[in-house]
């Protein structure tokens, strides 16, 4: 196992940035889920709505629900820029479930001014938040 730690910073609009020192982090990349460990090569990727898992050696993992965005990996430093991020502990599960219900029912009964892509995004976001709150991968 690689030694050392990586620094992960999460940025989002209207939200205070957060910063963690972890030894492994999992991201929902645009080309599939990927894991970053110390010594990772430089990478710039899109992110999809999903769950970010930050693992420390002590085993107290952190789960974050994020919306679409970008991640830059460079010199054991990860910058995550996402339009929404939320810690799993802070997720209001009832609200997330309600949001999923709403988006799903909109998809079931499509009318002409339905924005398919937006409804799907809403479902992904809601699912990510629910999963993060259960500390599960998405």
């Amino acid at each position, binding site marked *: 196992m690689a030694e050392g730690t990586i620094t992960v910073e999460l*940025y*989002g*609009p*209207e*939200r*205070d*940035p957060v910063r963690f020192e972890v030894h492994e982090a999992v991201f929902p*990349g*645009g*080309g599939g889920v*990927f894991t970053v460990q110390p010594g990772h*090569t*430089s*990478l*710039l*990727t*899109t992110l999809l709505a999903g769950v970010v898992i930050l693992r420390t050696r002590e085993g107290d993992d952190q789960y974050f629900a994020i919306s679409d*965005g*970008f991640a*830059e990996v*460079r010199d054991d430093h990860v*910058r995550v*820029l996402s*339009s929404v991020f939320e810690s799993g502990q802070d997720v209001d599960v009832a609200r997330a479930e309600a949001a999923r219900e709403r988006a799903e029912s909109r998809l079931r009964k499509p009318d002409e001014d339905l924005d398919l892509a937006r409804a799907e995004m809403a479902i992904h976001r809601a699912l990510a938040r629910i999963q993060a709150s259960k500390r599960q991968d998405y």
Partner: protein
Amino acid sequence: MPSLNDIKRRITSVKSTQKITRAMKMVAASKLRRAQQAITRTRPYAYNLRSLVSSVAARADEVDHPLLRSARGEGKIGIVVVTSDRGLCGGFNATIVHRVLECIKHDFPKREVELTIVGRKGLEALRRRHCTIRASFTGASDKPAIRAAAEVIDDIVADFMGGGTDEVYCLYNEFKSAVQQNVTLEQMLPVVPEPHEGDGLPLDYIYEPGQEAVFGELLVRHMHVQMHRILLESAASEYGARMTAMDSATRNAGDVIDRLTLQYNRARQDAITTQLIEVVSGAEAL
């Protein structure tokens, strides 16, 4: 010399105005607190996004994106003017409007300038001054959402891509503190990468899903977020300006009330003195 009743009426009227300005100050102060929080939290996100765009643009010479192509130095100039929808905020809108006219005259004297205006106040003022207005957006200045910003910027980007404008600048009030706003002129398009700090060693990223796709998306996001940031800056500045303006208005009203009260008391004293003299001289005559 106004009569006692006239003065009294004026005092009442100034007092009720003072109540209004005081209430507006309170409202502006509480809105300012929220707006200030929004902008200070959004800045790191926006700046990091910009530095990411810059570092990619600086490293990858081969990326050829229409938003990055250098200006031709001819053709129309676009200026995005960010003002407020509502007035009573001191010189907030006036300074911007003044700067726009200055810009047209001095910064780009030989170019045709087209304005895109955010906010009702700027629209009204600049329409009166016969500027070329390409588009205008109102109703977003109170609590700017990312979608309002997207609407504005998508329109500007579409115009730029279509060759309507050669360069686009943005003129807005940058939020410094509750009592200080800086009128800032910023180039939006074409996107100019910041001179990039660090070791200067060319570092190549792996791009997922692909360089062009990532960079394209990154640029679009960057534009949206910058516009959103600008709208938030302007909103926070607006509340700051309004709070200061209403504060001094309340204080002025207090001064006016003091002066009128003095005048009122003098007039009352005069009236009493005259009456006394009349009574005394009447008694003496008997």
